[in-house]
């Protein structure tokens, strides 16, 4: 019984603690930490400037095109391989059935 109560208390604690922490309001920054935060904010980017000229992002069109055509041929090839596998399975099954029919007729 004591173990059950202990487990219940532990379970409640584990459930409530994250909720209580989530509800806890953020602590007011003191002087030193406020300065640190302000310094960090100043280090952040305050504006975005676009890159001009040869430094601009270059997406390799040729490589993308080659990849697209390679995907088409690869998928078609895989599909044909799958069909070949399916036909091989059917042929093997037919072979087994023929053997079984021959065996049953021989009996």
């Amino acid at each position: 019984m004591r173990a059950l109560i202990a487990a219940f208390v532990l379970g409640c604690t584990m459930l409530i603690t994250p909720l209580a922490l989530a509800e806890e309001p953020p602590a007011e920054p003191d002087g030193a930490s406020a300065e640190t935060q302000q310094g960090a904010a100043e280090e952040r980017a305050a504006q975005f400037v676009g890159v001009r000229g040869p430094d601009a992002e270059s997406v390799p069109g040729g490589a993308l095109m080659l990849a697209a055509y390679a995907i088409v041929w690869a998928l078609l090839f895989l599909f044909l391989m799958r069909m070949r596998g399916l036909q091989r399975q059917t042929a093997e099954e037919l072979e087994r059935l023929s053997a079984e029919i021959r065996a049953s007729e021989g009996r």
Partner: protein
Amino acid sequence: MSRVRQSGSSTVWSLVLFATLALFAVTLYAIFVVAPVEQQMGIVQKIFYFHVPSAYAMYIGFAVSAVGSAVYLLKRDPKWDAIGVAGAEVGTLFCLIVLLTGPLWARKAWGVWWTWDPRLTTTLLAGMIFAAYLSLRSMGNAGEVEKRFAAGLALFGLVDLPLIHYSVQRWRGVHPTVITGKGGGLESEMYWALGLSFIAFTGLAVLLIWARASAERQREETARLRFELMHR
């Protein structure tokens, strides 16, 4: 009579195969030699010549699957079920091609691999519906209930096809509309390359559906024979 029909069918198959292979060779020449490089996007625009006809082949596959499924639900003839499966598989193959080649173009054109544009989203939805169809059919030997449920799913997927097609016209999106009435069109060499590609992909879709349906019918027939042998 059956042998004559089989021989005729084999001849037509060979003719379509050789015509498609020849067309693919001519199409590749038209794409990379005849059609000019696009002014804004550069060489990556050449993805368009395989991407758009793949989407068209996807429509063919899914529509064939829906028609096969509808007739199967009416007649319960396994031949139509095989056509339904073949259409779904080939449609999903081309849908995968569309969904993989599109982002490669988009990365260059839009700067992102994917965006939730109406056409992209509805195409993904169609792919997911038919992937569900194929998952259902791949669960061992599909029984009558699975076949009927999958047929219903294919008909549900058919509803999505007009949504994909008209999404660029009805809803605001970023997908290009160069070959619709709204677009500025293509240069004549580009039209030629695209037209040839459309014909080549139609031939390829027909060949793949034909071969897959034939393989599925043989598989079903073998399963039926096995069942009869076991209960003899």
